[in-house]
């Protein structure tokens, strides 16, 4: 094989050159045939890269590989006889692997392969056949249905929604203490599923419910991707979920033998919040199970040792240790019922307490829903059942989806699922919709129509619907069916935030920012410029000063320096010129006062001249 021929291709084993070969294609073929015969391990992959004129042999770790059925001379090696044997379980997958009928390809060898999706697609150039049509998708993508009818972007979106869905995230949820978790009250398995869905046992971890969805508008309350929900359905428990939040506290040890302690803080403790805050704690300082808790109430009472060792008092008595209150108190907007309390120990043998608080989240305005096809929307209105449109059978949809959200996104799969879901719910059988099976879209629709015809429908899922308020039929027929919807964990109750007055920053005395600090919305530089542009000077002053960090500062008119108010002598006093009328009070922003002091720290003296007329 080795040659000095200039055109000979380099052979690289795991990236290291080991020799040269004159006819690389024949070489590669030989290696592959050895592998198929079982002479060398099947974990070896070999590929000829034409661009580099190199043969790459890879046998190292970390390559992603995928199984394919080998095709030789335009015929799949997985013959009907073998398939029959497989069905009868006479042979296993490993048998096929050992006999070179199925082989694993890595990324490099795959680029030389010509893979057919279906058996009838095989031509004389074909080298491999997909084990299953659906295997061109990954795991997550295989959980969504009707993939072959959609654009790729919607696949990703739909798969992402499944990740964000509230459902049964773990079967041992009652024993877990996740910091945040959601649990759907009445999870349902989808009426339309895929082979991968069943194989992964996801029926036990269902993440949504089958909604009756009508494609119609409702006075503009479902425009721009909003959805309208049926109030009665919501009250019956549609998409209702529990929200768990866990709080953890530990009796930490400090150097010097001091230790934190779970207890109801005494009123003498530093940072004591008032009797009512701790009223629900039991004697050990921990709250009981099934206790109602509201925002601002303590659920774990804890005392920390004082930060500095107390100096002996002058009177000579023993110093009283003043402990600090470090209880865990519920933040604004957090309330519910104590679900579980856990006592345990950390590795360093300190006491550890975990408290899980549960609250019910009923769908409300602003909560987010998504189907498996990348169709998402927030609740725009919850309508009483009697005002919703209904069919002649008395079916009232759970959700009204705006028809305009479909054409521009080209999510045909959503329509297909609506129809298939309807057929499945009438026939009482779930429908398997693994992508890239034998039937095409037209045949599928025909099938569903056939089922629906048996139950008295003959118009592709369209039905005459009646206005709930007047009882009169709508002019056009409305497409109504069943779609599997997920409730996603973006909920308005967890994001709502309000501030009138509230905490301020320590350094600048300006309002804090962000939800956990009960902050305001920033009035930034560009917003400031907009007010300047409008000439709204008083509004600007209101935002930048009155509602922000307004302070009164004493200033000496003689020297122009900052002065102070002497509360003992009850007179304003200048550090240099002493007390007198010439020390006046000036209104300014605290940030400016801070700036003056910071400049002073740079050894630059700034004086203020006050003009009084």
């Amino acid at each position: 094989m080795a040659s000095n021929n200039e055109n000979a291709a380099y052979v690289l084993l795991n990236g290291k050159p080991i020799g040269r070969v004159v006819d690389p294609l024949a070489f590669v073929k030989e290696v592959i045939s050895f592998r198929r015969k079982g002479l060398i391990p099947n974990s070896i992959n070999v590929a000829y890269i034409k661009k580099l004129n190199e043969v790459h042999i890879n046998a190292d770790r970390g390559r992603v590989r995928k199984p394919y059925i080998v095709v030789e001379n335009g015929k799949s090696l997985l013959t009907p006889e073998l398939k029959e044997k497989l069905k009868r379980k006479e042979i296993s997958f490993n048998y096929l692997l050992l006999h070179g009928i199925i082989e694993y390809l890595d990324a490099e060898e795959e680029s030389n392969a010509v893979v057919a999706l279906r058996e009838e697609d095989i031509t004389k150039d074909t080298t491999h056949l997909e084990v299953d049509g659906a295997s061109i998708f990954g795991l997550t993508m295989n959980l969504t249905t009707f993939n072959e009818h959609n654009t790729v972007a919607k696949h990703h979106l739909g798969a992402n929604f499944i990740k964000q869905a509230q459902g049964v995230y773990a079967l041992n949820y009652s024993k877990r203490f996740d910091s945040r978790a959601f649990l759907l009250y009445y999870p349902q398995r989808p009426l339309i599923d895929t082979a991968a869905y069943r194989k992964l046992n996801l029926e036990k971890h269902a993440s949504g419910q089958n909604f009756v969805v009508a494609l119609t508008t409702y006075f503009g309350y479902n425009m721009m991707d909003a959805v309208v929900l049926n109030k009665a359905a919501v009250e019956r428990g549609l998409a209702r979920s529990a929200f768990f939040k866990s709080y953890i506290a530990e009796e930490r040890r400090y150097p010097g033998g001091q230790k934190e302690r779970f207890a109801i803080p005494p009123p003498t403790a530093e940072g004591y919040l008032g009797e009512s805050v701790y009223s629900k704690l039991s004697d050990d300082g921990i709250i009981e199970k099934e206790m109602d808790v509201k925002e601002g109430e303590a659920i774990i009472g804890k005392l920390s040792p004082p930060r500095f060792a107390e100096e002996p008092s002058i009177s000579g008595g023993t110093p009283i240790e003043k402990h600090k209150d470090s209880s865990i108190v519920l933040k604004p907007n957090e309330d519910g019922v104590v679900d579980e309390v856990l006592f345990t120990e950390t590795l360093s043998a300190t006491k550890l307490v975990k408290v899980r608080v549960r609250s019910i989240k009923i769908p409300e305005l602003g909560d987010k829903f998504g189907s498996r096809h990348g169709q998402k929307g927030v609740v725009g209105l919850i309508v009483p059942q009697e005002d919703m449109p209904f069919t002649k059978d008395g079916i009232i949809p759970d959700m009204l989806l705006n028809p305009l959200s479909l054409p521009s996104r080209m999510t045909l799969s959503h329509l297909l699922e609506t129809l298939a879901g309807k057929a499945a719910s009438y026939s009482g059988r779930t429908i398997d919709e693994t992508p890239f099976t034998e039937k095409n879209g037209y045949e599928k629709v025909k099938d569903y129509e056939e089922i629906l015809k048996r139950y008295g429908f003959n118009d592709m899922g369209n039905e005459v619907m009646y206005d709930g308020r007047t009882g009169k039929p709508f002019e056009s027929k409305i497409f109504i069916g069943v779609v599997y919807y997920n409730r996603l964990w973006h909920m308005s109750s967890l994001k709502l935030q309000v501030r009138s007055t509230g905490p301020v920053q320590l350094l600048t005395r300006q309002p804090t920012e962000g939800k956990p600090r009960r902050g305001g919305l920033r009035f930034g530089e560009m917003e400031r410029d907009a007010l300047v542009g409008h000439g709204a000077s008083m509004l600007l002053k209101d935002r930048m000063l009155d509602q922000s960090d307004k302070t009164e500062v004493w200033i000496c008119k003689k020297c122009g320096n900052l002065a102070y108010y002497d509360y003992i002598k009850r007179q304003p006093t200048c550090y240099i010129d002493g007390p007198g009328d010439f020390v006046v009070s000036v209104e300014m922003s605290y940030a400016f006062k801070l700036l003056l002091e910071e400049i002073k720290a740079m050894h630059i003296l700034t004086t203020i001249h006050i003009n009084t007329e």
Partner: protein
Amino acid sequence: MSKKDNKYLISYGEAIGTVTAQSIGEPTTQMVLGSLHSAGTSLTITTTGLPRIIEILDGRKVPKKPSMTLYLEKDIAKDYDKAKQIRLSIESVSLEDVTESYSEDLIARKLKIELSENIMKQKDITVDSLINLLQAENKSISVKKIGKNTIEISLEDKNKKMKLIDVRDRFNKIMHSNIKGIREIKRVVIMKDKNDEYYFITEGSNIKEVLNVEGIDKNRIYSNNPFEMYEVYGIEAARATIIKELHAAILSETSLSLRHVLLVADTMTYDGTIKSIGRHGVVGAKSSVFARAAFEETVKHFVNASIFNEIDRLNGVAENILIGKQIKLGTGRVILSLKKSDLPKLLPLKERERSEKGKEKKQIEESK
């Protein structure tokens, strides 16, 4: 007429600077997103879009692609042959441009050049005139004609002290030396306007040299480089150039009222020199320490202010927001200028009587 006139008046205390900044700033941020589409076209002589706007506002001395618009003198304006002839005297030709092939002998310090007859004819150059020009342009060389279209250049380096790399450098310089036209002007395109007059658009600009060229209308020379216009014609011409170029650059993508552009051009040129919009120009020249410190380089401005004992009179916008005073713009611009003692006279009669009785003293808003 006066109605129309009033429509365009700006009301007192209007924040024109801020409105201008927003009116230019907002569309330019949009342009960043859409500017990729012109990447493939190389035919444009001038830079356009956002880079051009930044170039003008930064007040750069040499723009990326300077260009001139030149008209012919009125009596020969419609003569295409004259135009072609004049073009030859403007467009720069280097020795390299007329070279067919060349060979260099570094040790003998000799450069043999075979000239292209065709191009020489096109550019209207003879071999003899070329030799004279080369002799005049480059010092200490001798040029000899050794064939019909072949010349030999030898360096005068008797002691052979020069390093080879320097010889190479020298040859390179000679090859690139300008033998005809104006060095800066790389290319000239002849265009025809609405009145059938021919005019040139040049790639590269040098007003001073063009002024010496015969046949060019001296009253209609225009360069898109405001700095060059400033050097030759003065600040008013520079201002006009900024207005024309900036407006054209913005209008090519969005629409904008000319008044905003006028304001920008005026701020850039009002003190007689071209200043950039930014730290080194307009903002750096602000009188208020706080306004400058709030923009960029806070510490530097405070330190310099302390050295020169600067006083901030708090007349601007930024500094008043900083200390928390009402800004002197818009509603904060107007001041009630009445004597306090005259105020009761303005009240309605009933209220005046009441206040005169002195039982209920009405609180009156005090003026400053």
